[in-house]
């Protein structure tokens, strides 16, 4: 197989939905994705590559049986926030290698079952045990970034304002309200310098995509490249903020495979779990130079109507961040953008999209995993 394509995508509602279990969320997402792909018979699926971070063993099988998806190999991946984009990366290679003809990718998370506030740090992790919750991980990124390049609070606020303005145009967004920079900076401090409106919420949701070979259907979206790495040792020798070198390395792999560079991309979906994450991601992807991320967002380059919109869906900040489902949510937005189906948030003439998902939290390495996917072209 010379190329793999996204045949269809789907998502459930995003939001705190404690009364809605994984089986219901999965049925919403998978039904939409199968309909979108024109798959009338689930026996056309050769495998399921699922992902969940906090889900119980058997989460995927327990939900999929209700859709009649049984018997085929069902594999479950975990790679922190990059879980379902990892599933998509692996599904693409399974199709390219000929191992499977058509793979259903699935991401699902029911975070309100486990948390009422920030994700509880992992006690078996040296820094988690010391109380470094994820807002603290990203706050440390901001601290280091400020030390290296300078960091004005207005730049952090601009990311939140932009993405929440985008999300107000997305009917699937968990938080559809627009905010002002003043409101962002005046919201409760979570981890200096990150305020509440600079942090993503927990979410319950499922997402799905059908991946297969070329079938001559115009709505199918070609996966031009995908790259995956886990972090290198990140220790006393490191100078960059957490995650930067991993994201940059994975992005370089993806650009090399796609045969294009970041300047050729019309629209990005990147990992903005916290505002500083989008700033470092835009630099690591090569949209701007190291230290240029603040000017990039402040200039309007990454806003809808700008040269290269970033997170037209609203990103994790507005659409929501159901960890194991997030990667495929980003891919779904990219697919809708490339088909011209993104409604009021459509990036006019979008032909190439890139998705970046960063997963992390393990002390001592530069991230659990990062995936960059290039679509279209």
């Amino acid at each position, binding site marked *: 197989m010379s190329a793999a394509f996204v045949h269809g995508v789907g998502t459930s509602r995003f939001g705190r939905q404690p009364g809605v279990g994984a089986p219901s969320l999965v049925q919403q997402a998978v039904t939409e994705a199968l309909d979108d792909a024109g798959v009338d018979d689930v026996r056309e699926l050769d495998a399921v590559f699922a992902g969940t971070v906090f889900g119980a063993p058997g989460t995927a099988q327990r939900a999929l049986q209700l859709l009649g998806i049984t018997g085929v190999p069902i594999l479950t991946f975990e790679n922190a926030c990059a879980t379902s984009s990892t599933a998509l990366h692996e599904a693409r290679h399974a199709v390219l290698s000929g191992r499977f003809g058509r793979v259903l990718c699935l991401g699902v998370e029911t975070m309100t079952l486990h948390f009422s*506030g*920030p994700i509880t740090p992992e006690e078996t992790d040296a820094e988690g045990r010391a*109380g470094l919750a994820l807002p603290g991980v990203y706050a440390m990124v901001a601290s280091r970034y400020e030390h290296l390049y300078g960091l004005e609070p207005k730049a952090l606020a601009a990311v939140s304002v932009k993405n929440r303005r985008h999300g107000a145009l997305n009917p699937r967004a968990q938080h559809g309200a627009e905010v002002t920079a003043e409101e962002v900076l005046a919201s409760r401090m979570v981890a200096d310098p990150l305020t509440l409106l600079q942090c993503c919420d927990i979410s319950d949701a499922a997402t799905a995509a059908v991946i297969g070979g070329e079938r001559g259907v115009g709505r199918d979206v070609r996966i031009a490249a995908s790259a995956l790495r886990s972090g290198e040792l990140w220790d006393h020798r490191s100078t960059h903020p957490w995650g930067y070198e991993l994201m940059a390395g994975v992005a370089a792999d993806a650009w090399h495979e796609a045969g294009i560079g970041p300047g050729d991309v019309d629209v990005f979906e990147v990992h903005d779990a916290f505002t500083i994450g989008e700033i470092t991601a835009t630099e690591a992807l090569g949209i701007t130079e190291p230290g240029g991320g603040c000017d990039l967002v402040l200039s309007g380059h990454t806003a809808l109507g700008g040269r290269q919109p970033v997170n037209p869906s609203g990103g994790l900040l507005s659409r929501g961040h159901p960890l194991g489902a997030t990667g495929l949510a980003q891919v779904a937005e990219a697919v809708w953008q490339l088909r011209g189906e993104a409604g009021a948030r459509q990036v006019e003439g979008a032909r190439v999209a890139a998705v970046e998902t960063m997963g992390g939290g393990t002390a001592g390495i530069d991230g659990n995993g990062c995936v960059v996917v290039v679509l279209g072209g």
Partner: protein
Amino acid sequence: MSTTTGDPRPRVRTGPDGVAVLGWRCTGCGYPVAQAVLRCPLCRGPVAESAFSPEGEVWASTCLRVRVPGHTPPYAVAYVVLDDGPRVLVHTPGDRPLPPSTRARVTGTSGTGDLLAVPAGEES
């Protein structure tokens, strides 16, 4: 050096010469590490128990102001690169994070096992 408690955080030793942060160092390439290892993560060489300087430089810092199990907010934390040693996560006094490049000194551990540090030159 026992790890039977399963607590992954670095430990300290307090003696007549003051506080030392305990860990391991590769006998081949010299790589220092504060987490328990059997071999060097860089070169797979043998490692030996080591006591690192308690002093170093703040690399990044923040103050967490949200509820985290086992910790009462607000609490300030910092990455400190120990002199000729590993980078460790420490708790620092109050709710004002120590700026990067500040010299800091590990003074011991809290009652719950977190590394504690103060600006170098200050009393613990």
